[in-house]
């Protein structure tokens, strides 16, 4: 299955586009998505500032709510990656 990940903050380094399409095994959850992101980052990007992103990021559902690691993803689902925040 495939999901669309809307990129914010430092995660924008992962793509020129606003979203990143990610292939996942069926019935994957957020924990699996973190594992896949870790793999993508280690294979494609040699940037130390991105290494911790899969561990420190939160994820928002389409309802803009934080979803936890056990949340089951659906095919074509659109979710947001929320790297550590720091406005003001």
């Amino acid at each position, binding site marked *: 299955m495939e999901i669309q990940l809307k990129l*914010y*903050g*430092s995660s*924008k*380094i992962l793509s020129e586009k606003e979203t990143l399409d990610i292939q996942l095994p069926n019935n994957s959850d957020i924990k699996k998505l973190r594992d896949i992101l870790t793999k993508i980052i280690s294979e494609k990007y040699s940037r130390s*500032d991105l290494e911790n992103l899969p*561990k*420190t*990021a*939160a994820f*928002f559902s389409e309802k*803009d709510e*934080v979803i*936890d*690691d056990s949340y089951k993803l659906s095919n074509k689902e659109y979710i*947001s990656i*929320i*790297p*550590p*925040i*720091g*406005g*003001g």
Partner: protein
Amino acid sequence: MTLHTALVKIEEEKISSEKAKKFIASEKNGAESIFVGKVRNENNGKKVIAVTYDAHDQAVIKSFQLICTNALNKFDKNAKIFLEHAKGYASVGEVSILIGVGSGHRDEAFKICRYILEEVKHQSPIWKKEHYADGKEEWLPGHSLRPKKEVK
């Protein structure tokens, strides 16, 4: 109206303390407190020329409203609150955040201002990318919103 919250596209519109003063004005106020956060020209020894603010718009507005409502409930239900934050490319000296509070007493006005600033930093999905004089740029580290029970 008691609350005004907004994300301002800084390349199109400026954040104005005059607008905040007008919004919070009331004959009931014994105190008006205005906090203005600005883009400064240095961070960790690096010469900063600008900051780009990225934001998850809908979630930011939700968080602003929640934070301000909590502030009213916690400190002064009759206070008036104005909160605007920049989004986009802001040069040194530009306003990044403006908090205005009108309240019956100074203590509440100061406390609400401080409370809102700290909560925005810890709850609102906003990110800063600094642009440096040497042409480099960097997203700044921040506060993780990942559920605490998951972080070992």
